[in-house]
Structure formats: C-alpha cells, structure tokens
C-alpha cells in the first residue's frame, strides 16, 4: 500500500512505515528511550531526504514523549524547577540549532553534518553505555568490589547563580542545567532526536540528580524542546511531513507498550548492554555511509533563488 508523502515528495509503503514505527517503538519502550536516534537514521536509509527525516522526527518525538511525561508527572517524578531551567536552555539551543541547520542546508553540507553528529554522539554514548553496564554486570556478580562515590565535586559546582532544586535535592548553579539544555537543544535540532540519550547521563553524572526524577524531568523538557524544533523547522525549512510523522506515531505507540512490558521482565544491566550495542551498530552503519565510495559522486539540489 503505497502512500505519497506530501513534504518528502516520495511514495513509500504505509505498512512498512507503520512497521518501522512499531519496531522502533518496541525498542524505545523496552529501553525507555525516545527512539529518535534510531528512527532518523532508518528514515534516511530508506531514502527520505535527511532534512525531512530530521524535521519529521522532531514532530514524532513530541508525540512519543508526551504520554511518558504525563505518566511521570502523575507519579510526581518531574522536577519542574529543573525542567524549566533545562527547557529555557533547550529553547535557546534548539533555536540556534535550527538556524545552523538552515545555514548548513543552504551551503549543501547538512547531510554531512547530520551523519557526522550521529557517528560522534552515538559512538561516544554507545561505548560509555556498554563499558558502564558491563562493569555493573561484573560488580553484581562480585559484590565485594569497592563502590564508586555517589558524585564528585568539581569546578562546575563553583559557578555563580546558585539555585535550589528541592525535588532533586540539589543546590547548584543554574548555569549548569542551562548549558546542558542549550547543548541538547542544538543536538535535537540537527539530529532530529529528543536528546534523552545525552540528557539522562548528563543529569546523573554532571548534575548529580537522583535517578527517580531524571527520566520524568528529561521527558518533560523533551516535549517542549522538540515542539520548538517542530515549529521552527516548519517555519524555516518546511521539512516537517505530518503524514509521515502520523504513520510513525501510530506504529510507535503500539510498539512502545509491548516493548515496555517485555523490558520490565529483563535485567537492567543486560538491557543497557543490548541498547549500547544497538547504538553502536547504528553508529557503525552511519559511519559506513561516510567512508564508502558513493555510486554517484554528484548530487542535485534546488538553487537558492527561484
């Protein structure tokens, strides 16, 4: 069943897109991640123009994270104060990111920058995940090993504009979450992701937030930042394909529910090792497209002025 996508200007099988949404939704439900970092490269592999894949994926992540954010809110797992500071940073970052995106698209380098960002961040995050969870797995088998300190005091804690975040039991400089928000906002705009895979480790290791509020707070700010990206991509680049986004959303919400049920039966470390390996596999696949000689060295684009 072929369906013509009005913004991507191509025809794809609707069932395949539902299936793709379902598969990524399953993985994201199982691992508790947004799935944008898997979906965007997959869309590019099946031929969706990278700019459209990124813009559309931001829209899909809004839908994917809002139900999670609401569920965490109900359970009181959102630190709103922290979430708002992160969100302000995220707004600044994603606005900068979309401008950068528009500029790179104009000079014909956006596909390259998207691919390099993926290789870089998926490579780092995937490797850290695998190393960390393999260590945790060994520790769980050998309980006598020394434990790590909960968090370290570094120069980051000496920054001005200190704020009290009661829900997170933290008294830290507002500049720190603001900076993280800006950085993740830029990534969200360029990579078409929510940025949870960077945000969650940053909240745990840099801010030292308690794990109970990390996921809820991260989802809370992701909803707003991806909404901002969706809006700005629509206005600046017209690269948000509603039809494509909706097909992916329908598939992913069902997949996520099944994934969540399967995931709850698996052990934490094993799930994290598996996720780390998937992240590394996607990274390797994207890296391959950069290194392998393309079968056509030339690519066409529509010139700046019409």
């Amino acid at each position: 069943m072929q369906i013509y996508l009005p913004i991507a200007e191509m025809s794809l099988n609707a069932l395949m897109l539902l299936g793709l949404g379902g598969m990524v939704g399953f993985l994201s439900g199982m691992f508790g991640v947004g799935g944008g970092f898997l979906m965007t490269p997959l869309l590019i592999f099946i031929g969706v123009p990278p700019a459209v894949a990124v813009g559309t994926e931001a829209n899909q992540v809004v839908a994917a994270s809002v139900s999670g954010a609401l569920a965490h809110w109900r359970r009181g797992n959102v630190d709103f104060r922290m979430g708002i500071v992160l969100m302000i940073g995220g707004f600044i970052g994603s606005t900068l990111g979309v401008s950068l995106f528009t500029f790179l698209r104009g000079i014909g380098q956006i596909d390259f920058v998207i691919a390099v960002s993926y290789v870089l961040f998926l490579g780092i995050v995937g490797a850290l995940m695998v190393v960390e969870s393999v260590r945790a797995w060994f520790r769980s088998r050998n309980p006598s090993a020394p434990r790590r300190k909960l968090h370290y005091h570094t120069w980051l804690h000496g920054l001005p504009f200190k704020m009290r975040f009661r829900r997170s039991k933290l008294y830290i400089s507002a500049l720190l979450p603001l900076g993280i928000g800006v950085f993740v906002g830029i990534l969200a705009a360029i990579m078409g992701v929510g940025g949870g895979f960077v945000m969650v480790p940053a909240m745990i290791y840099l801010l030292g937030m308690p794990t109970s509020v990390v996921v809820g707070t991260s989802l809370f700010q992701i909803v707003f930042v991806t909404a901002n990206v969706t809006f700005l991509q629509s206005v600046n680049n017209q690269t948000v394909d509603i039809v494509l986004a909706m097909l992916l959303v329908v598939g992913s919400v069902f997949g996520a529910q099944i994934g969540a049920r399967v995931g709850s039966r698996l052990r934490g470390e094993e799930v994290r090792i598996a996720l780390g390996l998937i992240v590394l596999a996607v990274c390797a696949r994207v890296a391959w497209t950069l290194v392998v000689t393309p079968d056509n060295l030339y690519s066409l684009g529509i010139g700046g002025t019409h």
Partner: protein
Amino acid sequence: MFPVKRRFARCCAIFGAIFGALFLAAPAAAQSIVVDLSTREVAISTGFTGAELLLFGATEGSGDIVVTVEGPRRDEIIRRKERVAGIWVNGASVTFEKAPAYYRTAASKPLDEIAAPAILEKLQIGSDRIDLFTRTAGDAASVLTFRDAFIRTKKRQALYSEDISDLKIIRGRLFRSTIPFPVNVPIGTYQVTVHLFKNGQLVSSEKTPLTVQKVGLEAQIYDFAHDHAAWYGAIAIAIALMAGWFAGVIFRRA
C-alpha cells in the same frame, strides 16, 4: 459622426483582412500536425507512484516525428563529493540557471538520421543539447564535466530520458508515444512540443502545455506547509500532543 454604412464597410474590411490572413496562412499549415494527450493534468494524489501519459496525433503527409517534453525551469545546483581525510564531503558545486527540471525526447528514428546536428542544436532536441547556463566561476572544462554529470544524474533519477524506439508511426500518418513521469516528478507547467521533419528540414511544430500538480489532501498539506508555515508547525505540534496523550489514556485503561 460616421454614417452607418461606412462603419459597416470598415467592419467588413477588418473581417476580410482577418479571413484573408487565415486563408493565406493555410498553405503553410497544410503540413500541420494534430496532437492530443490522454490527459493535460498529471495529478499527484495519495496513491501516486508515477504516471504514464499517452500522446497521439496525426500528420498531413509522411515525415519524421520528434517529441520533446520540457518541465518547469528552475535554478538547480549540482555538487560533487570529494574525499577529505577518508570521508566523503560535498565539495565543488555549479549552479545551472533555469535548467529544465524534466526533459524527454522521443523520436520515430535515431535523431542523427532525422536532421543535421546544427538543426537539432538550434531546436534543442536531445538532452545533450539543452542550453544550461551558469554564472559559477570555473574553467570551461570543469563546467563541462559538471554539465555532463548533471545530465547523467538527472537520467538516473528518471527525470531526463530519451527513447528513440518509443514513438510509433502508423501508416505514415498517425503517431503515438508515451510520456513517463516518475514518482519524483517536479510540479509545474510542462511544454510538449511535436516537431515534424521532412527530408531533414523542420516542416512544422505544435506545442501543447501540460500541468503536473498535487491534488486533494496532499496538495492542501503541501500548500498549507508553504503558505502558512507557522500555523502548519502549530498544528503539527497539536496533533502530536493529542496523539501522545490519547495513546497514554488508551493504554492506561488496557
């Protein structure tokens, strides 16, 4: 104030002149071609996977037929990837101004058997003969390389094509040909031109316009995204929020 009779006489004279011109012109058009298309509008809707149009017509007297189809003209940029530190990056580029987005030639026999290269060049028949202008600085040889690559890439995307065997002439008078449009066909106004050649000389040409446009919901979404971008963005967010919230509600109950 002119008498009524004189006014009548003037009208007669004008009509006479027009009719005279028509009849005098008639011998030249005697070698004429009649052309029609199975449709003058290619509609891109939900199930669009490409389309094929039938062009048919008749000539007075036998000859060779060449059909060209030219898509909307727009500035197109071609970029070449270059290897930098083992990674392929877009490097040099050339912008071709007002290049046809789509171009097709169909003929009843090989072009060089129909007319001399100079004539074909003048009429821009055949994708290798399309005029492509650029203001991008660069030596002639490199611009030529980009020009060849441009035509080659367009052919790979099925946007430029040549089919010599495709055009059928029936009993020396009737002809028909198909015009294929791939799924990535650019929207806009197309110009279909049918040339009639006799003994290597152009005898007559007939032009017919053709539109390729998005219709129905696809057209509305596309137009809305471009004309009301801010509203489009806001609606995209609203739909996503509702879909996510709705999914949460359903599965909480289940």
